[in-house]
């Protein structure tokens, strides 16, 4: 437990900036109104994120009630209904259950029937309702002629298509090309075949910025055929991730997280152990028991060393003693674990690593007997002949050679995310007939002759397959808002069907998967469930061919490398116009509204750059300027930058140059090249002398009571963690981290009747993926405030994920994370200082926030030890009062009040959900079942780290969690009796790498050196 905790380098070294933040009661004066450019962005934002606003000041507001003419059977006005659908990213579906309120989708949840996510969801899925009502979406068919934009309709396009395609049909489509976003839709495949039959000479290219080409190529190299690996983490005692974010960025991340987390309960059986070797810090890295920072170019080097050690052990040789270097020790431990757990371990390698390494990992897995146990293979339905970048280059060459007359771009935004060495932008303007189907008039649309509005995933019929192959079907939840057509509808049009019926097309395509005797009934069932049970891909058992012997490469010098990665917030840039996602702090860096050059502390020192200094990254003569973020734990000499930023035609949130809105961040795709889509060595870095302030949330809401000097000790009390061995000898170590004399309340203690709501959060399982935070934002109408306001610490997230670095080594620290939300204290300090009783307690233990009473003194936020109260410095919801923004207002959850300027707000344990279930149960005169009430954060969590329920029901999962020896209350010494308990984090390090257990019963260092009586008051 003698760990040192810190949140940022600023804090570790106590820079004046941090001290200032710490000593300020409130971030900055509340009266500061955004000015200048920032003011403009802020006003725009108001326009873009979340009507209604509840301004019913005057009684005689003439409110109309418009009942249906004929109410559909089963429809009850005001009662939310849920429909199954899915969203597809990179050709892989995430099955969803979308809540509709009187016909409008307001909240996304994972589909509990889906074997992949079992009810959990990603941040991307959560934000889909916001994008559905985004006012920046393309609203109709547009034609561009000689630089002028004309609004057209679908009929005009159909006439145009007739002419163009009529010509194409003459020559078999020799000059017709399609560039499409990757998809696993069977409907699309059917139409693709029809298209190929109609235009035999035409070519079809698939492109995605998040390609898995290396995986395809690697398996082809290893097995002679392209297969898809499936990991079973429930059976894996040892998980090794090589530059792979298996838990969150992997397409089956939610499944992996669930299975991984199920093996992280020290009371429920043997814990797994995870190793991560990676360049940038990922969620998998922070969840890992051991993390070895390594440049992406060096992964091959470490893999070769690992192979050598494993093989030596397999051959029965006594391993050589590990060297003194940390890397040596980790590799030795890894090899030992892998060999000791043959058939119960797995090695995964990231899609960014080259095919040869992929193949060698397949081989290693096979040698260790993991295949068929923790890893199984299936056919890869998404495999293409051409790698994505190769396809794009070929198309560009064809255009340049004048052999493309008509180009249809289905979805995607290739003009924006094409790598720098493929000049698609200038090529596109040379295509005589170019058609782009997209949800937004984006960078690609601007270069095409026609833009066609695409339907949102919630407006269309469709089918796709999830990573395990499970068939998912989407039904429209709402009529297309902007006259859009789906990808399959456009394809059908191209195939000559003027008025395609997507429902029939989809039904026809999936019919083959349904029971032929009861097609109609099974189809209805499938639409209802959203997924077809038992439709996962069949396992195949390929054998690894002999591979060329691994070259034991040397680590490649001190050269700088640049790593490109798909942003965990805005993906490949397609979510750039989502305020929710832009404002979600990155898991590790806590950056909002920007991308940055993430550099290791040692490298920053070597290069002489500092946090926030703007540097020029130069690669192959191309350059880009970015601010520096110094991240402890980033691999030395590796600089990583997120893709998906720097959108110039995203919209009023993500950047729109035409409307004078600065892009958010910089587009790093310009430095990508066909040969180096994932990382490239040979990076040069130049200082520019400029400075840039990144909007980072990490030092905000300083929880500490006594200033920076106390922080290190204090954080250890907030996030309590221990090694497994320590847990085994003292299971209740977490309860002994703080000591205090018997606590006595100054206030009259309340008694609680009826239910007692409580929550528990298991820190061993939490991986800090942010899904809970965005789910909370969507459920509770939490506003978006914008970059300038985040800089002033005015972000509004009710649930934030705190991140603390641990250990003394800034180059390879551990990371502890802690979701922090209102703890619903039984003796709430906020209530004691509110002069107007705007925050009061219910007899069920909820700390109610009464917005109408609040006068905005902010005493409560000041007195809140957890800093979880959020103040509306402005009327962040003003946008909804604008009559032109009625559409956008539909995203608001009608069950939650929209807060006005000058009002404090905070987590309510989703009281609207509690009440809905309570009323239902009481209507039927039955008790509430455990698990019936699910809070938004709990629902989204794929690790199932959050439990919620009645603490008085001893059998409830939450009561059991509270009774766990690992459970502790944060800041319990203040005698505020929080209703949220945290379960201490247990790490399972390899014995050779574990620090010795601390003495006594788990006391912290501060406690051990000063003896009990003397410091009794302090603790």
């Amino acid at each position, binding site marked *: 437990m003698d760990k040192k905790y810190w949140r940022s380098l600023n804090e570790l070294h106590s820079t004046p900036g941090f001290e200032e933040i710490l000593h300020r009661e409130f971030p900055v004066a509340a009266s500061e109104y955004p000015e200048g450019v920032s003011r403009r962005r802020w006003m725009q934002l108001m326009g873009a994120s979340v009507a209604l606003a509840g301004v019913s000041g005057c009684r005689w507001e003439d409110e*109309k009630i418009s009942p249906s003419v004929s109410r559909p059977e089963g429809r009850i006005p005001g009662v939310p209904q849920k429909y199954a659908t899915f969203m597809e990213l990179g050709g892989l579906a995430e099955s969803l259950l979308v809540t509709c309120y009187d016909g409008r989708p307001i909240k996304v949840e994972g589909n509990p029937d889906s074997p992949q996510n079992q009810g959990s969801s990603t941040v991307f899925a959560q934000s889909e309702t916001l994008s559905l009502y985004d006012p920046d979406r393309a609203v109709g068919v547009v034609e561009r002629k000689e630089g002028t934009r004309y609004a057209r309709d679908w009929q005009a396009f159909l006439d145009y298509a007739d002419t163009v395609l009529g010509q194409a049909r003459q020559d078999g489509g020799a000059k017709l090309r399609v560039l499409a976003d990757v998809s696993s839709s069977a409907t699309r495949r059917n139409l693709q075949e029809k298209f190929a039959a109609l235009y035999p000479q035409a070519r079809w290219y698939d492109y995605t910025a998040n390609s898995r080409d290396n995986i395809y190529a690697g398996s082809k190299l290893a097995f002679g055929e392209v297969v898809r690996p499936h990991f079973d983490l429930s059976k894996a005692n040892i998980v090794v991730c090589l530059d792979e974010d298996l838990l969150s960025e992997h397409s089956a991340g939610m499944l992996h997280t669930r299975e991984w987390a199920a093996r992280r309960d020290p009371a429920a059986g043997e814990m797994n152990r995870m190793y991560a070797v990676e360049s940038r810090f990922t969620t998998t890295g922070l969840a890992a028991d051991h993390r070895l920072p390594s440049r992406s170019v060096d992964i091959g080097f470490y893999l070769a060393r690992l192979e050598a050690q494993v093989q030596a052990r397999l051959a029965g040789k006594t391993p050589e003693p590990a060297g003194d270097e940390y890397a040596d020790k980790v590799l030795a431990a890894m090899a030992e674990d892998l060999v000791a757990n043959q058939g119960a371990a797995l090695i995964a390698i990231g899609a960014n690593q080259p095919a040869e390494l992929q193949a060698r990992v397949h081989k290693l897995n096979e040698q260790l007997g993991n295949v068929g146990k923790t890893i199984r293979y299936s056919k890869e339905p998404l495999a293409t002949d051409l790698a994505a970048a190769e396809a794009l280059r070929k198309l560009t060459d064809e255009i340049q050679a004048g052999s493309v007359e008509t180009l249809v771009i289905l979805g995607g935004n290739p003009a924006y995310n094409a790598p720098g060495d493929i000049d698609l932008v200038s090529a596109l303007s040379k295509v005589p007939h170019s058609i782009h189907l997209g949800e937004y008039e984006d960078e690609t649309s601007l270069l095409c002759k026609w833009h066609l509005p695409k339907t949102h995933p919630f407006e269309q019929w469709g089918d796709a397959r999830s990573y395990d192959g499970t068939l998912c079907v989407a039904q429209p939840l709402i009529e297309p808002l902007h006259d859009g057509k789906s990808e399959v509808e456009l394809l059908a049009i191209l195939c000559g069907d003027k008025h395609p019926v997507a429902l029939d097309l989809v039904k026809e395509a999936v019919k083959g998967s349904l029971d032929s005797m009861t097609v109609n009934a099974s189809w209805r069932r499938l639409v209802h469930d959203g997924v077809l049970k038992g439709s996962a891909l069949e396992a195949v058992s390929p054998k690894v061919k002999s591979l060329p012997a691994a070259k034991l490469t040397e680590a490649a010098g001190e050269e700088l490398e640049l790593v490109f990665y798909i942003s965990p917030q805005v993906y490949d840039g397609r979510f750039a116009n989502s305020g929710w996602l832009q404002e979600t702090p990155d898991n590790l860096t806590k950056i909002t509204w920007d991308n940055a050059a993430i550099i290791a502390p040692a490298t920053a020192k070597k290069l002489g750059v500092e946090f926030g200094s703007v540097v020029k990254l130069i690669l192959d003569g191309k350059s880009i300027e970015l601010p520096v973020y110094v991240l402890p734990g980033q691999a030395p000499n590796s600089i990583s930058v997120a893709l998906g930023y720097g959108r110039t035609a995203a919209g009023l949130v993500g950047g729109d140059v035409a409307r004078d809105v600065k892009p958010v961040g910089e587009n790093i795709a310009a430095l990508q090249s066909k040969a180096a889509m994932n990382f490239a060595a040979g990076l040069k870095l130049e200082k520019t002398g400029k400075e840039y302030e990144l909007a980072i949330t990490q030092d905000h809401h300083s929880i500490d009571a006594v200033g920076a000097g106390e922080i290190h000790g204090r954080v250890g009390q907030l996030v309590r963690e221990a090694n497994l061995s320590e847990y085994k000898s003292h299971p209740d170590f977490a309860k002994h981290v703080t000591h205090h004399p018997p606590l006595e309340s100054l206030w009259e203690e309340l008694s609680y009747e009826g239910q007692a709501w409580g929550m528990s959060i298991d820190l061993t399982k939490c991986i800090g993926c942010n899904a809970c935070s965005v789910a909370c934002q969507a459920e509770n109408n939490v506003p978006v405030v914008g970059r300038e306001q985040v800089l002033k610490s005015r972000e509004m997230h009710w649930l934030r994920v705190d991140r603390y670095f641990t250990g003394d080594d800034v180059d390879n620290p551990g990371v502890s994370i802690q979701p922090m939300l209102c703890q619903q204290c039984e003796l709430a300090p906020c209530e004691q200082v509110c002069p107007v009783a705007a925050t009061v307690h219910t007899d069920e233990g909820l700390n109610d926030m009464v917005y109408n009473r609040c006068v905005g003194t902010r005493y409560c936020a000041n007195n809140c030890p957890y800093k979880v109260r959020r103040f509306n410095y402005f009327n962040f919801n003003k946008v909804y009062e604008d009559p032109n923004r009625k559409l956008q207002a539909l995203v608001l959850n009608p*069950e939650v009040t929209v807060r006005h300027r000058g009002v404090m707000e905070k987590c309510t344990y989703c009281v*609207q959900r509690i009440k809905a279930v309570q009323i239902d149960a009481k209507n039927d005169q039955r008790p509430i079942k455990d698990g019936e009430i699910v809070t938004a954060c709990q629902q989204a969590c794929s690790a199932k780290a959050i439990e919620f329920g009645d603490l008085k029901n001893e059998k409830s999962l939450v009561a059991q969690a509270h009774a766990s020896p690992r459970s502790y209350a944060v800041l319990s010494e203040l005698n505020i009796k929080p209703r949220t308990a945290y379960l201490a984090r247990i790490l399972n390090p390899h014995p050779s790498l574990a620090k010795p257990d601390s003495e006594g019963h788990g006391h912290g260092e501060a406690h051990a050196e000063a003896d009990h009586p003397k410091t009794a008051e302090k603790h």
Partner: protein
Amino acid sequence: MDRFLFPKWANSIISVLGALGGVGALYVLGMVAFGASPETTDVGYQPEQPLPFSHALHAGKLKLDCRYCHNTVEVAGHAAIPPTATCLNCHSGADANGVVNTVSVHSTSTKLAPIRESQATGKSMQWRRVHDLPDYVYFNHSAHVRRGVSCVACHGRVDKMETVTQVKPLSMGWCLECHRHPEPNLRPPEFVTKLDWVADGDPHEVGEKVRKELNLNPSTNCSTCHR
């Protein structure tokens, strides 16, 4: 020259002015409080509806149950205003061939024209809301009628109203009164829509009995109504 000095009696003006000011302030405050109270502003609100539907006729004379039209009241927060189709059950007009259903009532009445128009055009009727709570209040009908709170408790004798009028203030204080002492407004749930129901015996005792049977503990927590 002598300086002008206020005579001594001038001092009393200050207290007189003060007293007048005080009374004035109280008067203004009282007038504002009275003028803005829901009892003054809301009670008696009687907007004109797009067609003169008479609850007195339908619910009173014809004794239609409230739930014939407001059929979601027991399962949902809203007691839904019936769709046009419900009206047409009795008041359908001539069909496309000019044939009128034999059981149709007032099939050619001009007063019912908006209903027939709504059916023909597919456009909703635009009823005007009478009982309107602020948007930050989450009232749930099912939670009340299933627990023995009659329609009459909040809406009055709708079965005697030609045009629906708000008769109760629907203010927070008024809500809380009942949440604290619900007994006078409780009756066996099967009688909630029987607006002329009279307790058999002491209403308070009957209410007490219902309260015990259904285990009713109306909450006065803020989040019961404000979320």
